[in-house]
């Protein structure tokens, strides 16, 4: 059973994003758009603590699922999740591997992806949101909530992933 821990975790996080938005999309989230990017955080952690190939593979696979099932614009997330995993692996050559740098990189990745998707939506004509509205109503709340969540979950997530990597190496 332990063998399937990582795929199971990533799948659950992927599904939970959608369920989360559906259940907690009340008034409070309306004036401040909070966008769940839990999957991205997990992907960055996987890249750092499990391996670059794993990160890129999961990034591409689940990015593509995200495109097909949720947004219906193919390729957007498959591309960026893979790129993020690759860049994270490159960045880790400069940083020390610990949960703080991982959290920092995860938050940077969120900002990066938000800007990228905003750009694509502008080109495609999917939004008329102004840049300042994007910053104030969307980006800042998202980063704020994720900062809290990442600080809470970074350490346990890192431990779990390291355990799993050790387990895989043994077998």
């Amino acid at each position, binding site marked *: 059973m332990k063998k399937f821990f990582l795929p199971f975790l990533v799948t659950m996080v992927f*599904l939970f994003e959608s369920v989360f938005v*559906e259940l907690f*999309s009340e008034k409070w989230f309306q004036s401040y758009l909070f*966008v*769940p990017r839990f999957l991205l955080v997990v992907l960055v952690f996987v890249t750092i603590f499990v391996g670059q190939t794993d990160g890129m593979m999961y990034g591409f696979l689940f990015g593509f699922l995200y495109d097909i099932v*949720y947004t219906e614009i*193919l*390729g957007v997330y498959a*591309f960026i999740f893979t790129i993020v995993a690759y860049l994270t692996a490159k960045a880790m050559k400069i940083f020390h591997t610990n949960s703080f740098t991982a959290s920092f990189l995860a938050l940077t990745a969120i900002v990066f992806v938000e800007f990228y998707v905003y750009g694509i939506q502008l080109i495609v004509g999917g*939004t008329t949101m102004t840049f300042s509205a994007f910053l104030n109503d969307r980006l800042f709340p998202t980063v704020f909530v994720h900062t809290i969540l990442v600080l809470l979950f970074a350490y346990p997530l890192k431990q779990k992933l390291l355990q799993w990597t050790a387990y895989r190496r043994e077998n």
Partner: protein
Amino acid sequence: MPQFFLNKRLILLLVSIIILVALIGFSLKDRQHLTWPEKFVKDAVVFVQSLVHQPAQLVAGFFENVNDLRNTYEENKRLKARLEKYVLLETEVQSLKKENEQLRELLDKKESLRDFVAIQATVIGRNPDRWQEMLIVNKGEQHGVKKDMAVITPRGLVGKVRSVSPFSSNVQLLSALDRKNRISAFVQGKENVFGLIEGYDAEREALLLKRIPYDAKIKKGQNVLTSGLGGIFPKGLVIGKVMDVVPDEYGLTQIVYVKPAANFYDIDDVIIVKRKIDELQEEEEKR
């Protein structure tokens, strides 16, 4: 220059950007159907998601119930007051319905744009990236859902079906920005005023009803309903109430701000609506 092209990673990046642009172009053109791999993947994910959704719904439902209990007394008072009015209205509706039927029989006109078949569906997910407001519901082609059908909640119209796969479909909410998303509607009054719902003002949280003649007199609080003239939606679905009327940028027509009757944020169950008139026509074509 040759060195530049020898860099394998750069070439890979360029190729993937080209593929990305091609894929985006492919998915943005006006598609009537999804490709079969998309349908397959979607149904598989939706199946798993519906399993995850139920326990999550239970937990969220518990907190909602606790919240509801706090307001019960106030609500009960208000509802009792309304109940008496409701009885009067009910009898009036009954007699009007009967009269309508009799008149229809006199005219020998059996079908109407108003009649529809309802397909009940449960919402099991929402687009988490929140650029396009979309819902995922658990009914699809197998249950008779087709692209562009109207989607309502008991309170009013919420959106239309954007894409279908065999066992699930995506619903685009009215608040989503889509230039192709036009709904023929009218303002109910002594004389009905017809226009088109085009777009959504996120700041004022209002739908825009455009192409209203400049001399039409519209007051705040009037009801806005679907007209059924667009070809897909039935007639008489509630959209909302008039909030504000302003002249458009050239002064030739007016724009009406419509406050949607349905809540776009708290949707658990929806009804997908199919016009009866279309069903009759389909049957005739089959014969």
